[in-house]
């Protein structure tokens, strides 16, 4: 499941039809919310793959984007997330490829049992695409925050769980999983986030990407802000003489055990960063791996263990939660300095 990606923006599928028009720049193409990139990529795939069905749960926008161009590949089940999952499982059982659209909290928590039994349990090729993950719903408050989704989903059998680090990786992830035989959970945010990737690269589901080499400590991050903050922290650390490896752990399940074990063995300490509760998510998954074969210190950075009902936008909430480059750098420096 590696995405074969175009070399330049002009070769990107969306650009093909507009060959006469000015070639869109990388920034023009990806400087939007990841969920927009997902939508246009899905539409593009659906144009040539009639098995694809866009299953909507009153997300807004899909009814025009999809419903108007490909009405026979669009169905709106309304505000009904449990049914969204059951219907998608039913569709998949008949040979179709449903993309079930909802918010991450409503996928992982509201419809949890339907995901557990009907989607994951049956190992059916349902693609759950969930937006507003982590704290990206910002000032919408705790009923819209999805900071327990990874803990729930990475535990369920059969699911592939992918968390793109930016809009670029979102396109890669959608393409790379188009033919996945089992179920997928694609975890997206709400607003546009900084671009981590400035040029094409090779994306492989289940294989962590080393964004920066390092020998003293490793920062393992997942999701847009965590990954870009990890890079920022690594740059700061470099200035202080600490060599930090940065891994973009875009696939939470199956987890890239080799990359984690190599980090443990080669750098002796790991900082994990996620926009998720400190328990149960990426950090827990990394701890599970290192304690099996190469025990090392792991400092987990995530949302503190309480109903996080601050009002602020995503960036500020992350700051309040202690998820920021300074914290990451400080934790990494401590681990790098600790005796192995």
């Amino acid at each position, binding site marked *: 499941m590696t995405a074969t990606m175009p070399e330049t923006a002009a070769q990107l599928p969306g650009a093909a039809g507009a060959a006469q028009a000015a070639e869109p720049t990388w920034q023009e193409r990806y400087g939007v919310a990841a969920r927009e990139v997902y939508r246009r990529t899905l539409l593009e795939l659906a144009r040539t793959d009639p098995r694809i*069905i866009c299953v909507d749960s009153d997300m807004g926008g899909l009814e025009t984007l999809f419903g108007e161009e490909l009405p*026979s590949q669009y*169905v709106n*089940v*309304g505000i*009904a997330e*449990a*049914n969204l*999952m*059951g*219907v*998608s*499982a*039913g*569709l*998949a*059982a*008949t*040979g*179709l490829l*449903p993309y079930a659209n909802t918010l991450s909290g409503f996928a992982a928590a509201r419809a949890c*049992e*339907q995901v557990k*039994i*009907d989607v994951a*349990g*049956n190992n059916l090729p349902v693609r759950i695409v969930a937006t507003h993950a982590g704290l990206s719903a910002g000032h919408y408050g705790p009923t819209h925050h999805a900071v327990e989704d990874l803990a729930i989903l990475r535990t369920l059998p059969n699911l592939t769980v992918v968390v793109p680090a930016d809009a670029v990786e979102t396109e890669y992830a959608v393409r790379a999983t188009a033919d996945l035989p089992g179920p997928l959970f694609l975890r997206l945010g709400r607003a546009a986030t900084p671009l981590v990737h400035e040029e094409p690269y090779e994306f492989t589901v289940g294989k962590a990407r080393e964004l920066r080499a390092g020998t003293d400590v490793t920062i393992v991050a997942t999701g847009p802000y965590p990954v870009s903050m990890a890079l920022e922290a690594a740059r700061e650390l470099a200035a202080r003489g600490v060599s930090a490896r940065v891994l973009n752990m875009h696939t939470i399940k199956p987890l890239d055990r080799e990359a984690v074990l190599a980090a443990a063995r080669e750098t002796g300490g790991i900082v994990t960063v996620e926009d998720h509760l400190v328990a149960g998510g990426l950090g827990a998954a990394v701890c599970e791996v290192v304690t099996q074969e190469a025990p090392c210190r792991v400092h987990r950075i995530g949302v503190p263990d309480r109903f996080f009902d601050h009002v602020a936008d995503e960036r500020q909430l992350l700051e309040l939660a202690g998820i920021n480059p300074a914290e990451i750098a400080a934790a990494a420096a401590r681990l790098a300095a600790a005796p192995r």
Partner: protein
Amino acid sequence: MSTLLEPPATTAAPTVAAPTTAAPTTAAPAGAAPAGAAGPADLADLAHEVRELVLRMGTTAHGTHVGGSLSAADVLTVLYHEVLRLRPEQPDWADRDWFVLSKGHASAALYAVLAQRGFIDRTELATYGAPGSRLAGHPLRRLPGVEFPTGSLGHGLSLASGVALGLRRTGRPGRAFALLGDGELQEGSVWEAAMNAGHHGLDNLVAVVDRNGLQISGSTEECVSLEPLGDRWRSFGWAVAEVDGHDLGALREVFAALPDSAGRPTVVLARTVKGRGVPLFEGKKKSHSVQLTPRLFQRALTGLNARRAR
């Protein structure tokens, strides 16, 4: 009638039945009849056999959900022998009808009709609930003829709706059926699915409600009432057919007339009696889950046969 499962030894201790593991005698061929070929008399025989098989499965180590299996026996018999277009030798036949046992706890009755239709061997019924069996307390998807694993109530109608949509989308002739318990209708997920299916006008979708009036803790109307049940479904956009769920002829007629209303899914409200056919269990909430001791099994079987003779 069938002695497909060895009758349990009558000398066993009264409160703990030994699992029935003996080899079956040779089977009567009736169960292999293709859909539509069974006449009313045959149907009655088949339904009677389903009940007997349910009771036999109830003698296994953990017992089974006797009451809800017996109440659904006639509906399942008619569906599997008269209504559903299936190819037992090719369970994934593209043009088949799909059936979802949303009230998965009635698995014993499902296994009985699957055996009659030849999806599984009758001998396998003796393994109900036993280690290594494919016959779990609730149906597993890896059993031929089972489309989805069920048991958690309130999933089946969504699944069947998705199937109905998928069949429509892919232009296949099959229909999707789901059998629900009446207590199960207390799950909001049922109404979420009902509302959607009604809206999308899935006329290739049929829900059957086993309206036996009982759930685990008593009468549905005393626990959380469901009436006026027909009005509920109608107001959610469904065509409603009410029928005596133990009248085989009436059931045949109802299903033969489907879809009864173009552009709408249909719910068949089958008025049934929990534990039906076994006087000991009829209308008793205690019949919900029973492990039949040899003595109890004999009483039940005698009652079943006597009731039939009447």
